[in-house]
């Protein structure tokens, strides 16, 4: 597996290498800054991006100047642990992290309850009279419990604060560790002296509530991560390769080379992008495109790596090795986007660092002030200030929402390739849709407009299909579905630019332009549109040939309009065809005959006029136009993903998903705003109360944990599918489909 991880997450040429790895131990913005500084200072590093929310670092560097081990060493020297991303190891590391966290929380919780009992006795004893010997005994017992809680459960705070200080950075662990050390130190001294207040209950409660808050954060973060890791891990451990002598051999997916023939049994996952050798196969690509129904593939079609064979067993021929297959590209893109931090988050990080400094200074000021007024209250008030402030909510507000939104979108089939794209998507107010390949499937559709001399529509289509059978003209594909084994054309001749001629059922037919058909005899048909089928007896049928609208195109356009976006069609095709598609979709503005540079100029003009354009194209022919728009989306097939010119890649080629995604992006923006507002309001309200001595230190611990929890949970709402009717239906499948999901 470690080899595959290298392939999937490290890609290198002679002068430019790219790697994504996970960095353990980052807790806040300050940590991510020190990691990126540690890596960025190395020679030859072109770009480094570190994300706390996903615990990842992405590095582009020149392998001639710095090696990967040197980068790992630099991160280790800064006080963090580097681990390559890989399925099995990552999940066992996650399990270890989770277990350690649970043990810490458990110990802190049990210790907290016990010390609270002792302290209650002391309080009660204080008012009712208590034997000083027993009081001292209870204090010592409290110390016995608080000590292991502090050193075992509280260790992460001290380790975090220590590595922050060593790097001369201020993270959110610094005030927490300071508060813990002060409270514990003062209590121990007072216990040994035999007089004065003790805060063992506050110490254990701090630790318990803070750990509980972090545990939920950990759980949410791990859930977001596991969506990408599920992709990377979806590949089978081994695959049956058909050898030249006809035998099969089990090999690792990484060993598969282009041209290898593979045997995929029912229910198995196709390991690499491969061509289908069998006549047909049913596969499910839900992992890649979010489309959950099975797709019928015919001989020669590409079966994507990561799709599940739900039909009978098939033979395929590998087209590309694992690391070049679409799945690997998707994983790489997701890694890259989730590791980068949106611009908004970077701003919040800088504020958070100042925030900690101000907190510590403020706590010091509060302590000094209370010392003059009432010395006994100086320590509790300072502790409350240190603990109640919550820079974590501030620095988590944006990345948590972003990670949840990208995860959600990836599941529904939309890949975000740039971190700021979602923000721009949320603001878009004009959609420019390319026609061919975007609104239309690119495959022409034929319709019978009229029949003459008693020919049935079905017969007309069958005769036409027989005539067009050998032709490779694009229009011929429209007739393919109507080919019948009973009707075969003989003596077929093609006339370039005019049509075809052939004999079907003993009669000579022509199919093509009206004047060409009319040469056989009979009348010229009056409507010259589309194709004409005729024989010596005259015109038999006329056809209209149009680009087929994609499924759901109409629905998608109306959804986009509901979202308040203006819809425009810009096509390179005949203006008449563009307007026709526009009419079908109720789009007034439909332009045709636009060359790529005219499309570019069109988008620029609209942008200058103040519109924020969302350009949707097929991603191959309109790269510059996509780049000019404020946000761009490509309907991508396997090849286009590697190029990734667009901000967003629509993997399932369904425009309805795009409309949904705009909704999600707007929700994300709303959630970020709520989160930032909340953390600002919370801190503004809590700090003065704590400084005034109105908040007990343990209440402060609850306040801080709840505040960062609220932010994370609010963001996690985004990862859930919307409660629209179809989404809910998908969530509650009938018994049969549920079983099919569990045991594909």
């Amino acid at each position, binding site marked *: 597996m470690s080899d595959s991880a290298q392939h999937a997450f490290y890609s290198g040429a002679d002068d430019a290498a790219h790697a994504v790895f996970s960095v353990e131990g980052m807790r806040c913005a300050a940590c991510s800054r020190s990691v990126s500084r540690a890596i960025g200072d190395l020679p030859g590093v072109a770009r480094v991006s570190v994300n706390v929310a996903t615990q990842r670092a992405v590095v582009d560097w020149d392998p001639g100047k710095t090696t990967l081990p040197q980068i790992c060493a630099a991160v280790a020297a800064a006080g963090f642990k580097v681990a390559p991303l890989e399925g099995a190891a990552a999940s066992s590391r996650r399990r270890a992290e989770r277990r350690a966290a649970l043990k810490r929380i458990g110990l802190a919780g049990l210790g907290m309850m016990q010390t609270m009992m002792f302290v209650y006795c002391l309080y009660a004893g204080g008012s009712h009279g208590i034997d000083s010997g027993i009081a001292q005994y209870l204090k010592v017992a409290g110390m016995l419990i608080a000590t292991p809680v502090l050193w075992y459960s509280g260790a992460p705070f001290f380790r975090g604060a220590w590595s922050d200080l060593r790097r001369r950075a201020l993270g959110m662990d610094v005030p927490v560790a300071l508060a813990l050390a002060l409270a514990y130190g003062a209590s121990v001294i007072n216990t040994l002296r035999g007089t004065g207040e003790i805060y063992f209950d506050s110490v254990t409660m701090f630790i318990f509530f803070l750990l509980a808050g972090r545990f939920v954060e950990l759980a949410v973060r791990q859930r977001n991560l596991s969506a990408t890791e599920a992709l990377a891990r979806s590949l089978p451990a081994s695959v049956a390769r058909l050898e030249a002598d006809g035998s099969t051999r089990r090999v690792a997916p990484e060993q598969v080379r282009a041209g290898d023939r593979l045997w995929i049994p029912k229910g198995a996952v196709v390991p690499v992008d491969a061509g289908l050798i069998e006549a047909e196969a049913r596969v499910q690509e839900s992992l890649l495109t979010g489309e959950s129904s099975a797709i019928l593939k015919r001989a020669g079609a590409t079966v994507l790596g990561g799709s599940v064979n739900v039909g009978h067993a098939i033979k395929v021929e590998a087209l590309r090795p694992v690391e070049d297959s679409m799945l690997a590209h998707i994983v790489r893109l997701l890694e890259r986007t989730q590791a980068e931090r949106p611009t908004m988050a970077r701003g919040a990080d800088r504020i958070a660092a100042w925030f900690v400094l101000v907190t510590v200074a403020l706590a010091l000021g509060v302590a000094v002030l209370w010392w003059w007024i009432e010395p006994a209250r100086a320590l509790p008030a300072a502790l409350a200030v240190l603990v109640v402030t919550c820079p974590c909510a501030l620095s988590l507000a944006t990345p948590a929402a972003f990670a949840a939104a990208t995860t959600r979108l990836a599941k529904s089939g939309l890949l975000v390739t740039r971190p700021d794209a979602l923000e721009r998507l949320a603001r878009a107010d004009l959609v420019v849709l390319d026609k061919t390949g975007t609104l239309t499937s690119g495959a022409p559709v034929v319709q019978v407009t009229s029949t003459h001399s008693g020919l049935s529509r079905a017969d007309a289509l069958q005769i036409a299909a027989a005539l067009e059978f050998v032709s490779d003209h694009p229009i011929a594909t429209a007739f393919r579905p109507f080919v019948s084994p009973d009707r075969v054309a003989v003596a077929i001749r093609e006339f370039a630019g005019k049509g075809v001629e052939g004999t079907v059922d003993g009669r000579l037919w022509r199919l093509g332009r009206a004047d060409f058909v009319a040469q056989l005899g009979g009348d010229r048909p009056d409507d010259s549109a589309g194709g004409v089928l005729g024989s010596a007896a005259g015109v038999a049928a006329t056809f209209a040939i149009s680009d087929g609208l994609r499924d759901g195109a109409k629905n998608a356009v109306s959804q986009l309009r509901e979202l308040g976006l203006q819809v425009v069609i810009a096509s390179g095709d005949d203006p008449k065809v563009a307007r026709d598609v526009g009419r079908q979709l109720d789009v007034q503005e439909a332009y045709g005959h636009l060359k790529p540079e005219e499309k570019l100029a069109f988008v620029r003009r609209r942008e200058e006029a103040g519109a924020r354009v969302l350009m949707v194209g097929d991603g191959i022919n309109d790269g510059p136009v996509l780049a000019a728009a404020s946000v761009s989306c490509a309907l991508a097939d396997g090849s286009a993903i590697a190029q990734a010119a667009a901000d967003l890649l629509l993997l399932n080629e369904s425009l309805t998903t795009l409309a949904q995604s705009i909704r999600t992006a707007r929700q994300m923006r709303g959630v970020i705003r709520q989160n930032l507002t909340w953390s600002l309001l919370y801190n503004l309200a809590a700090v003065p109360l704590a400084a005034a001595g109105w908040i007990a230190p343990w209440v402060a611990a609850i306040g801080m944990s709840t505040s960062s929890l609220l932010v994370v949970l609010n963001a996690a709402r985004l990862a859930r599918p919307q409660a629209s009717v179809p989404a809910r239906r998908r969530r509650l499948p009938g018994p049969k489909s549920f079983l099919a999901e569990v*045991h594909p």
Partner: protein
Amino acid sequence: MNIVFLLIPLGLVLLGGAVWALFWAVDSGQYDNMEDASRPVLEPDETPH
């Protein structure tokens, strides 16, 4: 009143026992997967393929 001097250490021993039991449960993997444990109920014992 002197019974307190005996009961408190006894409480601490019980606390130690509870902590030990929790650590054992976590280490033996009982909390590793909280979601899927409820699922097998809905599945048949064997799935025909």
